[in-house]
């Protein structure tokens, strides 16, 4: 599984060859559900639509509710990159947000123990970006991530991990990503994509109207 493919899916043959070579069955792409319907029909590969909201570019303290209302029904999975305590504290209790993106700019003063507990209570995922390992300044890029991961390991927050490839050739196998995560200190028992798939399943039910609101399911 690749949970954050940032590239295009124009060369379908190449992608299906590479994914079958790597044993990847699910790819989360930065495209809406309607855009993915046009691309679908790729053999042995399930496409998942995801969106990343950046603080400052897409959302801020004032417009985040309206923005989430607009896009929630267009994507199966929504992740947020936020670096202000105020916005983070509001988003962590918002049911429309699935995960919090942790990259080299994330700071331990915001992703602290208290925040970690609130993530755990609200079933949010921690999305860890390992893109920093592919640069030449590994220590600089990983400093913050390593500290946050060390803190998160003590709690029950579940991780999703990716290096966010931008081309088809940058894709890596699930086992490979797991090996990268392990050298970053992520506990091996927490590296499991089942949480991600469960989340997608739940969101699909919400999108289909089977779960009209939290805690109620129409059978």
């Amino acid at each position, binding site marked *: *599984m690749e949970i954050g493919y940032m590239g295009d899916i124009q060369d379908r043959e190449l992608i299906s060859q590479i994914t079958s070579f790597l044993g990847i069955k699910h790819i989360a792409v930065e495209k809406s559900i309607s855009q993915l319907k046009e691309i679908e029909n790729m053999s042995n590969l399930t496409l998942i639509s995801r969106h990343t909201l950046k603080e400052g570019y897409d959302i801020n303290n004032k417009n985040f509710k309206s923005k989430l209302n607009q896009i929630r029904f267009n994507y199966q999975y929504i992740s947020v990159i936020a670096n202000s305590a105020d916005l983070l504290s509001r988003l962590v209790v918002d049911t429309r947000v699935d995960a919090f993106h942790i990259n080299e700019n994330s700071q331990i003063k915001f992703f602290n123990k208290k925040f970690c507990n609130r993530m755990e209570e609200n079933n949010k995922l921690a999305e860890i970006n390992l893109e920093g390992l592919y640069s*030449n300044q*590994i220590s600089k890029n990983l400093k913050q991530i390593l500290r946050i991961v060390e803190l998160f390991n003590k709690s029950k927050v579940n991780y999703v991990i990716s290096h966010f490839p931008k081309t088809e050739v940058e*894709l890596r196998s699930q086992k490979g990503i797991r*090996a990268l995560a392990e050298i970053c200190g992520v506990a091996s028992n927490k590296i499991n994509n089942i949480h991600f798939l469960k989340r997608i399943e739940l969101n699909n039910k919400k999108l289909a109207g089977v779960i009209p609101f939290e805690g109620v399911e129409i059978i």
Partner: protein
Amino acid sequence: MVVKLHRYRYLKLEIYGNELSLKLLIQTLRKKYSLVFGEIALAKSALHVLQLTSNNFIIRVTHLHRNQIEAVVQLIGDNTYIPVIRRVSGTIKGITKKTEEQNIIMNIFGEEEE
């Protein structure tokens, strides 16, 4: 009882895409390994690479450095090839052996997750 402090692990590496020479692969691996873990770890790992066919290689490391080399393999690769570790074994015989039963299992559980 004699206990070996360093037991070797053999990793089968498969390359997708352009062919890669043995010399270039060793150079890239050593360079990346020393960049991430340092020269001393590289010396301790006893890294050694053999070529099976044009796109199949065997990497030998000590069991203590197996996880590290698996991670480093993911970091190599420009935009022309993709490296994948297919199998890990304690003997070369174990890594080259591939029965039909194992083939079937690999087809069913291609993606190693859950």
